[in-house]
């Protein structure tokens, strides 16, 4: 079989896992990694699941590896932080069945809260890193990662970036290798990481990296291509494609393995080129090591630490070319916004009216931080809304947070928010938490989670009740309210923020984009009744436009009939047509 198919980078990684004989995959959704699991689940030979967070996903994969099968965990780069506790230690344990972690970085911050470089995490965790440049390599390197994992007794990281994960290119498909399970043998010295055993394993870790660095000089994926030797590039991943595009005649050392580095190969390459450039997005991981060996090279002096690179960057900064382009037009920005009919908009319209500050979290609802809603004051990481609110109270006293709430989504609450809520109960907080329950993981494109009643494979399962979970933790005051019942929500928020005890308000309404929410109604304006007060426009629904005469038009292709504008109109100038 040598069928060719156009595949997204993430789809190709899933295919690679399939062909490598992987049997277990666990992940938490996060852009740009989500489609890996969404594609893996299509292969019935692989058990694939959504875990509540990346630490759990990593540990599931570790368990499967220890038992003797090939296993994978995938996540975005900030998820790697959550999974770093098991990662740092499983580095010592190594692998029985191949163990691979896919870490998806986001240079350019398309959908993330920071721009960290997972290669640095892997270096500290002493885990090898493979970095593919296109969909074909994404598949091939995934298979290779499992081989290296077993050969060197190590977990292996595959590092991708948004541009690779979300680019499509042709991939040659191959058959699945049926890998027999490795026998499991009780081996406390290897698998029980307490001090005495870990000391021994640390020796293994150092030796393994040394061995691999030596072997890497002859790995096929580390490829020195000699052309014009007046300029040489050491590069990897997507930046390699920019070098090929802008400077097809330059000599290139393309690294498929970016940690550990093949020192001898690099020294040889450096000695053969007149001027050496290191072209790597984000941190100078390769550059600093190469410089520490006394090799002269140019890197971050010329190329930024921020954002994505491009071929034009090379044309301008290396070749000194002026890239002639028309000046970009001065146009209004179009930042992302909450969708028409989004239940978060309804919730935020109430909080805005009450002048409430929000300690925010990670999800679509983070968009409540911007105009015209301006409800969210802080966003750090998954689960941080509840704990930061608690910290504010402990710093400034309970009266200080009487006009604050924590805002967290259902999936995020189960990810790590629940731990923070335990802390609130335990340490006698008086804060109010709003769980914005839209019955899905919204921003990453509708993934199920432990409270939706469905698994990754679409099969039904037990749905964890957020209400009973909060009750069980010890929160006395837990309420459920419809996100579009703005009068009731207002009453509840006013009452609960005033209360000197911890409260949870679960604000329910499914994401407007879920198929089950297919539009059944439309809102329309009645211009004769319109007093042009603009109250309907305040929450910033994109389906509404203000006409020149001050009246309002509702776009019938965008409106989903949520009725928020209608409820806000005091003059009955908006009606809903079923």
């Amino acid at each position, binding site marked *: 079989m040598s069928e*060719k198919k*156009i595949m*997204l980078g993430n789809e190709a990684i899933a295919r690679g896992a399939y062909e490598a004989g992987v049997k277990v995959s666990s992940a938490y959704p996060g*852009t*740009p990694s*989500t*489609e890996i699991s969404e594609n893996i689940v299509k292969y019935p030979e692989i058990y694939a699941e959504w875990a509540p967070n990346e630490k759990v996903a990593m540990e599931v994969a570790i368990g499967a590896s220890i038992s003797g099968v090939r296993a994978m965990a995938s996540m975005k780069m900030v998820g790697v932080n959550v999974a770093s506790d098991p990662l740092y230690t499983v580095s010592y344990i190594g692998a029985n069945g191949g163990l691979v972690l896919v870490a998806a970085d986001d240079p350019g911050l*398309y*959908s993330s809260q920071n721009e960290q470089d997972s290669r640095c995490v892997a270096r500290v965790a002493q885990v090898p890193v493979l970095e593919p440049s*296109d969909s074909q390599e994404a598949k091939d390197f995934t298979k290779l990662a499992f081989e290296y994992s077993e050969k060197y007794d190590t977990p292996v990281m595959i590092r991708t970036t948004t*541009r*690779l994960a*979300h*680019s*499509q*290119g*042709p991939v040659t498909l191959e058959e699945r290798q049926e890998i027999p399970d490795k026998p499991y043998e009780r081996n406390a010295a290897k698998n029980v990481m307490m001090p005495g055993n870990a000391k021994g394993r640390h020796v293994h870790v150092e030796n393994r990296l040394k061995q691999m660095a030596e072997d890497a000089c002859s790995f096929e994926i580390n490829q020195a291509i000699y052309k014009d030797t007046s300029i040489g590039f050491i590069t990897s991943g*997507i930046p390699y*494609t*920019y070098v*090929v*595009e802008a400077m097809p005649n330059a000599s290139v050392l393309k690294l498929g393995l970016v940690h550990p580095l093949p020192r001898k190969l690099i020294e040889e390459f450096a000695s053969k080129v007149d001027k050496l450039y290191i072209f790597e997005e984000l941190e100078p991981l390769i550059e600093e090591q190469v410089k520490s060996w006394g090799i002269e090279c140019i890197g971050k002096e010329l190329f930024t630490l921020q954002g994505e690179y*491009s*071929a*034009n960057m090379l044309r301008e900064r290396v070749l000194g070319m002026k*890239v*002639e*382009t*028309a*000046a*970009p*037009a001065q*146009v*209004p*920005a*179009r*930042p*992302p*916004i*909450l*969708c028409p009919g989004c239940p978060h908009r309804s919730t935020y319209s109430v909080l805005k009216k009450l002048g409430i500050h929000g300690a925010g979290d990670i999800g*679509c609802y983070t*968009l409540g931080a*911007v*105009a*015209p809603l301006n409800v969210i004051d802080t966003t750090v990481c998954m689960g941080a809304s509840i704990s930061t609110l608690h910290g504010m109270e402990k710093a400034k006293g309970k009266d200080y947070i009487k006009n604050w709430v924590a805002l967290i989504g259902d999936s995020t609450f189960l990810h790590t928010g629940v731990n923070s809520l335990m802390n609130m109960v335990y340490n006698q907080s008086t804060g109010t938490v709003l769980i914005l329950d839209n019955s899905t993981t919204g*921003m*990453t*494109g509708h993934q199920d989670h432990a409270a939706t009643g469905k698994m990754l494979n679409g099969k039904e399962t037990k749905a964890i009740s957020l209400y009973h979970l909060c009750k069980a933790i010890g929160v006395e005051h837990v309420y459920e309210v419809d996100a579009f019942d703005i009068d009731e929500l207002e009453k509840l928020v006013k009452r609960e923020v005033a209360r000197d005890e911890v409260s949870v308000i679960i604000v329910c309404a499914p994401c407007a984009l879920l198929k089950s929410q297919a539009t059944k109604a439309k809102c329309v304006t009645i211009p004769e009744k319109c007093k042009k007060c603009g109250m309907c*426009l305040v929450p*910033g629904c*994109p389906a*509404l*436009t*203000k006409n020149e005469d001050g009246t309002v038009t509702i776009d019938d*292709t965008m409106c989903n009939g949520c009725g928020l504008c209608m409820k806000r109109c005091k003059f009955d100038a908006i009606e809903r047509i079923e």
Partner: protein
Amino acid sequence: MTTKNIMIVGVGGQGTLLTSRILGGIITKAGYDVKLSEVHGMAQRGGSVVTFVRYGESVAEPIVEEGQADVLIAFERLEALRYAHFLKKDGVIIVNDQRIDPITVVTGAAQYPEQIIENLKKDYNVIAVDAMGEAKKLGNPKVFNTIIIGVAAKRMDFDKAQWLEVIKTTVPPKTADMNLAAFEAGYALG
């Protein structure tokens, strides 16, 4: 052949991803090497989105850079203007003549530019279509993007029968007939 560079731009949620999938399909069918680059995640929530499509004998880089695009397919007027500088001097713009106000305009922080299409025509070869109006005539506003594909197809070197085949196999089966009709309508306009 030299690599062809196409950009599809629009507002998150307008269906640029489906369009790029159809383009990817037709390009592969013709036997070219191809790279497509998309935007997923937060930017899809009503933000400005861009998809790059590059095809030829051998394609390395997945993105189209400023000054390199042969064709700009814009699902909304303002987005055509935003990305016009990505075009080559003789580049073609196919634009859906629709206005969607960004939140910056809704809140009054910015003005929606006037006369976008007229101004773009000064520098580029612009084909403006009221795809939404045409789609409503067909009874389904959602297929406006397939109408635009039809318009674009008229200007590309692929066989019409192959386009129809790719559309049929790419869109959800239930919507196939509607999308094929939309493509035909666009093709007739192009």
